[in-house]
Every structure is written in structure tokens, then in C-alpha cells.
């Protein structure tokens, strides 16, 4: 489904990604791990169009997206969450989910201004979908609250709901459990598995190894911008290169 070919990115001398090759097959949950500063977020930024590789190709369902702007990537079916939460804090939770569906609406501005039936039907449908997502992530009671007023864990879940609102085929999660307690973390893991069972493809960055073991079908390990290992969770945890890369960072992030 997603295929990276020799993707490289450097920031004025710093090689954040070098010749990354990676395949995310349809319907699988792929983990991406690596020490701090390894280039994981950079990789997700490049896939989602916020940043662009210096060389290489990013093929999504056979189409090269490496120069595509973010909204094109999203409309092609890739959605993401952020390591540092980036909700629209001044909007309500519901509105955040409406924004998520931006690319799916068809009514024109003029239909909206004239308050025509198609616009009204579409608004109702958008709201309905937003409600479904709220239920799915147990956020209904917050629907009309400002997103910035939500408790931290709920903000993370809202971000995931908002990403799903765009109607993606591939979901990129950047440390979705950062700052969550163990109970919240495993609940989120359940969500991820449920999404996979419904046919979603997921690429997840995580420091929390228990979550990685819980959800991932396969894992890539990134260190200094290079893929140093690839395999299923068991193989990875016994790979000497990986152990070496993580030396001294063992408990990092797994609060």
C-alpha cells in the first residue's frame, strides 16, 4: 500500500533520513521505533506532505506523493496524528471532527450561503459521522467543549478521531500514547487493533514497547536516519543491532 524507496532528507548537513526503504502492506499494523532524534517524526512529516524528501520516492497505491502538498496527501487517503498535540484548540470537539471531514464535503460556498438543501443534507451527514466518531472514542460528553479544555488523554484520542474523520486508508500515528497511563495505553492499543480488523492500515511510532508488542505485525527500526532492522516483534527484540542502538535509552519514554 505504502512504499518508500531510498527516501533521504537532510537539514543543512544533518542527515535526518538516509536511503530509507520501507513497505507498509495493506491491512497491517507496522511499528516504527528508534531512539530520540532517529528521524521517525521526519519520516512521517515526509509521508504526510508537511516536508518533502531531497531524493527518493514515496509511493501510495502506486502514486508518487513525494512532492505532493499535505492536502493532496490527505485526500489521497493518508491521515496522521502528531507527537505534540495539534488540535484546533479554540474550536469545540465536534467542530474539530467537522474540519476533519473538510475534503469529503461537496456543497459549494454558494449553496452554503443560500442555505440550499444539498448543503443542509451534507451538514447533517457530517455531523452524524462526527457523532459516530465521538461515540467510538467515548468523547460524546465533550462534544461542545473547547478542544483545549479536554484532559490530555482525551485530546490524544480526539486527535486520532479527527484523523479518522478524513476517511483515510492509511493512518500514521506519531507516539499516540505519549503521556498516557498504562490503562489508557492498552485501551488505545485495543482501538488500533479494532481499526486493523476493520481493514485500516496503520503505521505507528512508539517508544512504549508493550504497546508495540500488543499491536504490531511487523517493526522497522530507525537509527540516525537509517533502517537498521526489520522483522516481527520477537525478531526485533533479539536483534543485537537494535539492542545496541537502544543501549542507555532502555526506559526512555515508557513512563
Amino acid at each position: 500500500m505504502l512504499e518508500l524507496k531510498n527516501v533521504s532528507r537532510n537539514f543543512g548537513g544533518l542527515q535526518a533520513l538516509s536511503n530509507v526503504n520501507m513497505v507498509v502492506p495493506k491491512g497491517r499494523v507496522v511499528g516504527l521505533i528508534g531512539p530520540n532524534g532517529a528521524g521517525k517524526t521526519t519520516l512521517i512529516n515526509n509521508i504526510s506532505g508537511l516536508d518533502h524528501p531531497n531524493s527518493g520516492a514515496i509511493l501510495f497505491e502506486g502514486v508518487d506523493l513525494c512532492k505532493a502538498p499535505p492536502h493532496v496527501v490527505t485526500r489521497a487517503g493518508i491521515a496522521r496524528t502528531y507527537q505534540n498535540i495539534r488540535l484546533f484548540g479554540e474550536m469545540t470537539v465536534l467542530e474539530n471532527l467537522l474540519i476533519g471531514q473538510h475534503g469529503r464535503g461537496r456543497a459549494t460556498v454558494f449553496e452554503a450561503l443560500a442555505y440550499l438543501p444539498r448543503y443542509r443534507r451534507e451538514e447533517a451527514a457530517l455531523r452524524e459521522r462526527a457523532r459516530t466518531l465521538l461515540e467510538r472514542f467515548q468523547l460524546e460528553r465533550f462534544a461542545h467543549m473547547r478542544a483545549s479544555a479536554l484532559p490530555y488523554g482525551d485530546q490524544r484520542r480526539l486527535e486520532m478521531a479527527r484523523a479518522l474523520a478524513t476517511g483515510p486508508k492509511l493512518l500514521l500515528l506519531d507516539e499516540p500514547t505519549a503521556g498516557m497511563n498504562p490503562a489508557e495505553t492498552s485501551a488505545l492499543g485495543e482501538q488500533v487493533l479494532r481499526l486493523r480488523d476493520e481493514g485500516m492500515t496503520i503505521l505507528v511510532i512508539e517508544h512504549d514497547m508493550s504497546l508495540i508488542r500488543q499491536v504490531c505485525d511487523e517493526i522497522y527500526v530507525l537509527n540516525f536516519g537509517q533502517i537498521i532492522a526489520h522483522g516481527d516483534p520477537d525478531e526485533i527484540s533479539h536483534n543485537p543491532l537494535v539492542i545496541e542502538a537502544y543501549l542507555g535509552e532502555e526506559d526512555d519514554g515508557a513512563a
Partner: protein
Amino acid sequence: MDSGQQFLQQLINALSLGTIYSLFALGYALVFSVLGVLNLAHSAIFTAGAVIGLLLMRYVNASAPVAFLGAMIGAGLLGIILEWIAFRPLRKRGAPRISQLISSIGAAILIVNGFQLLFQSLFGRTEEYFPRGIVAEQPILIGSLSIQPIRLIILVVSLALMLLLQFLVRRTKVGMAMRSVAFNQRTSSLLGVNVNWVFMLTFFLAGALGGAGGLLYGLSFSRVTPFMGQDIALIGLTAIVLGGMGSIQGAVLGGFLVAIFQTFSIALGGSSYRDAFVFIILFLILLVRPQGLLGQPEQNRA
């Protein structure tokens, strides 16, 4: 006069105008590099320099050098006051930098209108001339070139001030503190640099330079108006954008380039398009190379 000499004459005019632009633009650049904000009230401080100089000459018969010093100090103090009322409260609140731009516009309007009222009550009109004979008026002849003494004075005084600033920023402890705050405010304050004090000092220096520029500008036309800063506000902005926002050398370079460009565009196309040329440069630079000639590009991070 042949065309070579005419060129030289023009060049000297351009250089003396350029030093004023550079002095003025340095004020914008200092504040932008240390605080990361654009102080649009800087043009009002420029005017303040000229006004203070004029008042000192008029009402206490100050000599030119004394008036000049007074203007620099007065304009510097005005800079500090501005920092207190228009910037510090917003910075404390962590307001976006556009808010600080707006408050500085407000301050500029306040100052300019204040001067307008002052002029009306003191002189009964909104322009005033310097007393005669403050600077020598007999043109200096070099070969067949005739140069106004004020132009030479401007050149020498401005260059001296720029060198002084360069020395201050590069070679002194105070300059070190300024540079470290410009580089990273948080770290500097952890290292024991008194950040607020550095900000005050920056505004004082910026104000003093702007004030000096204003007085020299006024002297070169021998006239002061409350609105003289408005003519030069955008020219100064063009200079710093051209040189690279927040770059000290860039501001100086930008000031000279704008002056040279202006002077020769008058020679080519007539004075009514002089300013249009400047704004076209401003536009082009912003679009093609927003970081300016000597600046580093800004990166955004997700």
C-alpha cells in the same frame, strides 16, 4: 560638468543619504535581532531625534554637537519608554508578535500626533526650520565637485556611530549579552544574563541611532516636520528586508543599496517614481528571497 563627475556627485549624495538610512535601519534590525519583533514606532523615534535636536537648538541655544548628543539620549530614552508600555506587557503575556507590531503602530501614531499638537502650539504650523548657521553652508570644492558640508558631516558622523555600534556589539561584555539573548533568550537568562536589562539597552541603542538619523536627516533639509518619519519608515523596512531581517551588517548594506537605487532612479526616471522603485525592490525581495541578502531562511517544524 562631464558625466563622470556628475556620477561622482550623485554617488556622494547617495552615500550620505545611505548612511542615514543605514543608521535608521540599524534600529529596526537591533530590536528585531534581539527581541524578534518589528518596532514600527521606530520611525516616530526618528522624528523625535530631529524634534529634540531642534528644540534644544531653539530654546536653549545648544550648539550642534550638544543638540546632537541630547537628541540621541532623548530618542534612546523614548525607546526605553516604548519598550515599557508597548512591548513588555505583551511579551510577559506571551502574545503573538503581530500584537507587538500593532501596539508599536499605536505608539507611533500617538507620538506623531503628539508632535503635531506640540508644533501647532509652539510654532503655529506643522513644520519648522533649524536656526541658520548651525552648520556651515559654504560648499566645499574638490576639483570641480561641490559638496555641501552637511553631507560630509553626515557621512563622517554616521560611519563613526556605526563603527561604535559594531565595537559595542562585538567587543564588549554588554554586546556579548545582547548577542547571547538574540541567540537564545531562555538559555541566556539561565546563564545569569539579565534579559530585561538587555532589552532595555537594545531599545536605548536602537532609539539613539534612530534619533541621530532623524536629526541628521532634518539638518540635511534644514527642516523638521512631525511626519518626516513616515517618509522613511518604509525605506527603512525595505533596507532591513533587503539586507536580511535582524542582520546588523544587512541593515547597513540595505540602507546603502536603497539610497543608491533611489538616487540613480531619480536620475533615470524622475522623482515621482523614486518611491515606487523602492517598493518594487521590497516586493521582489520578499517574494524571491524573504530572508534577504545576508539572512538565513526560516524553517518550520511540525
